[in-house]
Each structure stands twice: as structure tokens, then as C-alpha cells.
């Protein structure tokens, strides 16, 4: 069984969880009060860079039959799409930059450079995923309705194809994201909850796909005249680069070992401290340099992002320092590791769970039943403090 009482699982008292919540609230207040010119300049410079890379990529492809230019064009466009989708689009749509009061960089108006309509993304991701993070049956990101990513999900023979589905999802990631908000589960059951809404959303996805594919696979190739085919393949490569990279980054967020899943009963009367705790225990970071973090939309700070999804991404490094200090204080795990290691851990789980792996399931269940192992098995920070005071 997944975790249904996070306070018990973490071996903390209710007072500890409340105090923890207050510490996280304080981080939010401090960052909100100090947002200013430097932050605004950060996002504007990323946006400028992204647009220049995009132009450079399009220009390079006027020489697309020449292999180095083909490669440069594909790479520049790929990087531009990655930056746009991750550090810019994803974060702007979270409202991280709404405080600037600039309608051109605002969650209400941003539309990103992939086939998923921003409006549907904001529903499935900002609302469902970020509110019900890692709650089975509520958060569609737990396996994206096609993968078994925890032994809490019942094994079905169809899961045998998981390594194949997973590869397809990687290659076609933007399309997977595009249909994410649709009632796919209902479609498979042939019992769509709201057929009219389904149709309207599907039409919206269709419109966005026509615009995106028309641009990348028809208009820009045509613009390069006789080089139509080589420009087309370069654009396909750029989209593929973005698909594979964003897939890899996103799979490191909640699937590596150490990221916990929860049952719906955890949501009952969940306090704000428990909400923070669930975000903390349900997410996993990865380490890397500044460039790596920018290129991954700051999702190497997945924990910080889940605690404060609408604080500016350039502030996550300083937030991370305070979060790790809080984790140490309350003896809580802070799941992180190198990017290859974290990616390997999530892929390994997906392969393992293609089979009804009883041993693995038993291990997971034992972990969830036992709760977080502590150096000092039964003492909590407040008990420790009380002991110190008593001494």
C-alpha cells in the first residue's frame, strides 16, 4: 500500500509538521519580498537568448544540405525548443513571473512552443499534478496512465509492453503531453466521462498541432526552397532532441527510488505542513552545474519546485540551501543524485514493474509500512529538543 498517513510515515509529531510548514512559509515570504530587477532581468535575458537561438537555427537551415549546417540548425533549434518549453514556458505558466505585471510574460497569456495547448497543460499539470502530487488515482503523472511506476499499481499483462511504450513515449513526448489532459483512461474503458468536453479539448489539441506541425514541417522547409527535405529532417531532429531531453528530465522528477506515492486517504484533512511534506517526499532532485539546471528548466530542483511552484526558478538554488537545512533539522530525506544515476533509477523501476515482480513489491511495501528509517529510531526533533531542555 502507498503511504496514507505521511506524518506517521515520517515519524514526526503533528507539532513538528506544523513547525516545518511554518519554516517553508517563511522561505516563501522571504523570496516574495525580495523579488526585483535582477530576477526580471534573468527571465528577460533567457527569453532573448532563446529567441536568438531560434532565429540562428532557422537561418542555419537555409544551408541545410551542408551537413555541418544541418547539424548546427537542428542543434540550435533543439536547444531553443528545450529552453522555451522548460525554463521559460513551463515556469511562466506556473505564474513564476506574474509578479512582474507584464502581460507579455504572464501565465494567463503564455503559449508554448510544442503541440500541447497551454490551457490544458495548466489544468493537468499546475492543478492536478501539483495539487495531488503522487496521489494514486488523482495525479495522472503517476505513470501517465500508460506506465506502471509503482507496485501499488496492479500488474496487468499489458504492462509487459512497458519498455516499448516507454520508448515510444520518449520519442513522441510532446504528443504524449498534448493528450495528457484528455480522459484517456475513459477512452480506453470506452466510457468517457464528459464526451463534449473531450471533443472540445481534442479539437483544441488538433488546432495547436496544425499550427506547430505546419510551421516546422511545411512552412519553414518550403521557405528554404530546394532544400525542403533536409530542412524538414533537421526540424524533425530538433523536435526529437527536445522530446528525448524533456522526457528524461521529467522522468527524474518523481520516478527514481526515494520518491514516495500516496493514497487518497492522505488527502483527507491534509494540513499545509503535510502538503509540504508530501511534496518533499514525493519529489527527487538531481545535481548539476548552472547550465544543466537552466537547460532542464530548473527541474533538477524538483523538490523546491514542488514546494514553491510559483516562485521564480532562478531563486531555486538559494531556496535549496534552506530546504536541505530544514531536512537535516527534521531528519528527513532529501532525494538527489547525479542526473545519469537518477535517470537510471527511474528506467530500472519501469522495466522491473513490467513484470509482476513480487520481491520488488514486497520491498516497496515493507518500506512504506516501516516509514522513514532514522538514526535515532523513535525520537523526533521536538522530542530531542525536549530531552535537551530536560537535561
Amino acid at each position, binding site marked *: 500500500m502507498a503511504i496514507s498517513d505521511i506524518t506517521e510515515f515520517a515519524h514526526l509529531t503533528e507539532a513538528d509538521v506544523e513547525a516545518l510548514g511554518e519554516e517553508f512559509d517563511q522561505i516563501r515570504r522571504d523570496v516574495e519580498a525580495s*523579488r*526585483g*530587477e*535582477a*530576477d*526580471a*532581468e534573468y527571465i528577460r535575458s533567457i527569453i*532573448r537568448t532563446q*529567441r*536568438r537561438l531560434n*532565429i540562428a537555427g532557422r537561418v542555419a537551415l537555409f544551408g541545410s544540405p551542408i551537413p555541418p549546417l544541418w547539424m548546427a540548425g537542428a542543434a540550435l533549434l533543439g536547444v531553443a525548443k528545450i529552453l522555451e518549453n522548460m525554463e521559460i514556458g513551463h515556469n511562466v505558466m506556473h*505564474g513564476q513571473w*506574474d*509578479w*512582474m*505585471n*507584464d*502581460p*507579455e510574460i*504572464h*501565465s*494567463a497569456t503564455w*503559449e*508554448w*512552443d510544442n503541440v500541447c*495547448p497551454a*490551457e490544458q497543460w*495548466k489544468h493537468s499539470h*499546475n*492543478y492536478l499534478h501539483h*495539487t495531488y502530487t503522487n496521489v494514486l488515482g488523482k495525479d495522472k503523472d503517476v505513470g501517465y496512465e500508460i506506465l506502471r511506476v509503482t507496485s501499488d499499481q496492479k500488474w496487468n499483462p499489458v504492462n509487459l509492453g512497458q519498455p516499448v511504450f516507454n520508448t515510444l513515449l520518449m520519442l513522441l513526448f510532446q504528443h504524449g503531453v498534448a493528450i495528457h489532459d484528455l480522459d484517456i483512461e475513459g477512452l480506453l474503458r470506452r466510457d468517457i466521462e*464528459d464526451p*463534449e*468536453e473531450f471533443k*472540445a*479539448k481534442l*479539437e*483544441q489539441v488538433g488546432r495547436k498541432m496544425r*499550427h*506547430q506541425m*505546419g*510551421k516546422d514541417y511545411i*512552412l*519553414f522547409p518550403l*521557405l528554404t526552397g530546394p532544400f525542403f527535405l533536409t530542412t524538414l529532417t533537421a526540424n524533425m531532429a530538433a523536435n526529437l532532441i527536445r522530446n528525448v531531453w524533456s522526457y528524461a528530465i521529467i522522468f527524474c522528477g518523481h520516478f527514481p527510488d526515494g520518491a514516495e506515492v500516496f493514497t487518497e486517504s492522505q488527502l483527507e484533512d491534509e494540513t499545509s505542513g503535510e502538503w509540504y511534506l508530501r511534496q518533499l517526499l514525493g519529489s527527487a532532485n538531481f545535481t548539476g552545474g548552472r547550465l544543466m539546471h537552466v537547460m532542464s528548466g530548473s527541474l533538477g530542483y524538483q523538490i523546491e519546485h514542488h514546494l514553491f511552484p*510559483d516562485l521564480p526558478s532562478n531563486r531555486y538554488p538559494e531556496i535549496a540551501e534552506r530546504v536541505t537545512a530544514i531536512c537535516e533539522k527534521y531528519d528527513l530525506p532529501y532525494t538527489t543524485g547525479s542526473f545519469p544515476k537518477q535517470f537510471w533509477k527511474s528506467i530500472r523501476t519501469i522495466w522491473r514493474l513490467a513484470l509482476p515482480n513480487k520481491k520488488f513489491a514486497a520491498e516497496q511495501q515493507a518500506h512504506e509500512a516501516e516509514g522513514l528509517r532514522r538514526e535515532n529510531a523513535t525520537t523526533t526533533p521536538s522530542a530531542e529538543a525536549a530531552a535537551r531542555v530536560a537535561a
Partner: protein
Amino acid sequence: MTAIGDWPLARRVRAAATRFTTPLLPDDYLTLFNPLWSVRELRGRVVSVTPEAEDAATLVVEPGWGWTFEHTAGQYIGIGVEIEGRFHWRSYSLTTPPARDGRRLVVTVRAMPEGFASRHLVHGIAPGTIVRLAPPQGEFVLPDPLPGKVLMLTAGSGITPIMAMLRTLDRRHGAGSLADVTVVHSAPDAERALFADELELLARRHPGWRVVQRHTATDGRLELAPGPREGSPRADRATGSSPRVGLDDVVPDWRERRTWACGPAAMLDDAEKLWADAGLTEALHLERFSADLSGGEAEGGTITFARSGKTVEVDGATTVLAAGEDAGIPMPFGCRMGICHTCVAPLRTGAVRDLRDGTEHRVAGEGATDSSHIAVQTCVTAAAGDCVIDL
């Protein structure tokens, strides 16, 4: 609103270019080369900042693409200025005649003691700064044909829209102009009197124009209230060193004149009452630098902010913007008087009412998709029954 949009060929070129730049607009790339090349948000470059009377400055702004130069003397524009990463909006009357020559906008700004945006415009803005602009608005204009006898009644920076009118009239000669104008302008003292020299010059050039400049620190305030009110601080002041001066003393024939009045709210309230008591309400034109939200009465109801997941009960006098801010939602806002459209948010379901004129904005149907929402100005609308705002 946009000159470019009015030109069919340009519109077609723009639509075609957008196919290539989707999901962005061509403007988003053009601004990389010149910040004024955008009609997405109107922009302007500050050309000069000239200090005027104490704590005031005249700003000359070169507007970018999309500006039509079709304002009428007496109208105001919105200026959005970035301070510490955040855009702040204020409205200022244009002080120059509507002329295409020069292609510059001129406003005179007084730094308000508490107003850090106006303070920034007067003291903190350097030539070359890019500001955002909102198109000219306002009904405070001279009619066509012109009336026979006119009184301009102003105080403080209320002189600014009147200056635009006087300069426009000055430019026309003979029959196109006004023969009989009286200007009564009050300022605390000579140092703080805006346009003092120019007003005198105008009076000398036009035989029928009379200018009365009053310095309230020495001359006392021009009393518009019907009589000294018992116990009011103003009545006390009026009985002080300076004798009480009423409008009859300064402009005996004010009842025969069409009057344009602009100044502090208290002065305008008094003027409104004086003219109403004389049965001359029709002859008085007022300019208030805040929205008059008494034009309609909303029903009130429950506002749900969909993306923040917050719901608030509000009365019919609370704007959607105020309701959202009270609930701690980072609402976009601008001028707070319904002119700049920065605060616009999608209304998903239900209805809101415009408090300026009582217009109802209602979304038909359930509003599940982008096709069925309308954008509403949150700063001047209130709930008309239950509604859902997508913020």
C-alpha cells in the same frame, strides 16, 4: 487601435508571418532589434525629462508601432513604467495638441508625496527608457462646434488637460478658436505653479482670454462650497488671515460659461455641488483621475479563482481585482481605472458587471474550452452572481 492593423496589406503580411512565428507573434522577434517594433503591447521611448515647477517634470515620449496620434485635446494616456522589475501604471493627460508632426507625446507629471510611480517618473527615469503605453481615452474634451464663453477651472496638476486644449485653440486662428476664455488656476505658490509663464503669454496673445493665477498659500483657497461650513477645517482656514474668496468674486459671469474643471477630488466635489445648486449641471465638465465606479450596481456573489483554487464571497461593490488581492492571489493590475487593460483575466463561467456603466458580461454555457470565455477588466467589474475567473 493599431495603425498597422488598419492597413489591409500589412494585416495580411502580419497574419502570414505569424504562421512562421507561432506560438509567438512577429513582434516578439522584432523587439529583439528595436524595442519599439511591437504592437502587441504599445511601447514608447522616453526622449527627454525636463524639470518643471517644483517636483514636476515634462516627459517627451516617442511612441512605437501601433500609435495613431489621433487623440483629442484633454484626453489622457496610460504610462506603464518598470520599477524594480514590476510594471506600474498611471494615467496622465497629454499636454500637446493632437498633431502628427513631431510624432511625440508630451505629459507633465507631478510627483505625489506617497506615489512612488509618479516620483519615479519625475526623478528616476532616464532618457532612452522604454515605457509601456495605453491609448488615449477620456471624455474631457471640447465639443465641436465650440461653445461661446468658456471657464477653465483648475488646481495643481489639473491644469494639464486644459493646457492641451489651450494650446490647440492657440494654434487655430480666428474663427476656429475661442474668443472668450477665462482660466482660473490655483497652485500652492509660485514655485509649484505649472505653466505659469505660458498661461500669461497666452493671455497676452488672445485679447478675449483672461488668466487668473491664484497661490493658495498666500491668497487662500478659492471657495466653491456654497458657504463656510461650521466646524470644518476649511471654514476655519477661510476665516484666517486671508479673506474668503468665492467664484463670484473671481468670475462674476461663471453661470454664463461652459466650464471644464480638473483638480483634486475635494475641489471637484464642491464644484459639482455648486453647479448643481445653480441648476447648471449640464454646463460643467469634470475630469477625475480615478474611475467613477458608481455607474452600475452589481449583485455580488461567489467568485472562484480557478487556477488558485480559491473561492470568495463578495458584495456587489467589490471589484474582482480587489477580491482576488484580498484572497492573496497575485492578480495582474495596472491603472486600476479601466483604461490600460493590464488586469484583464478570462471569465470562464457566470457573469460580472462593469461598475462604470452597469454593462453585464456573461459567459454562455459551461466554459470548458478556450472558445467560450471572455476577457474582463477585473479592476472595474464586480461579481453579478457566481462566476469563475481563470487566475
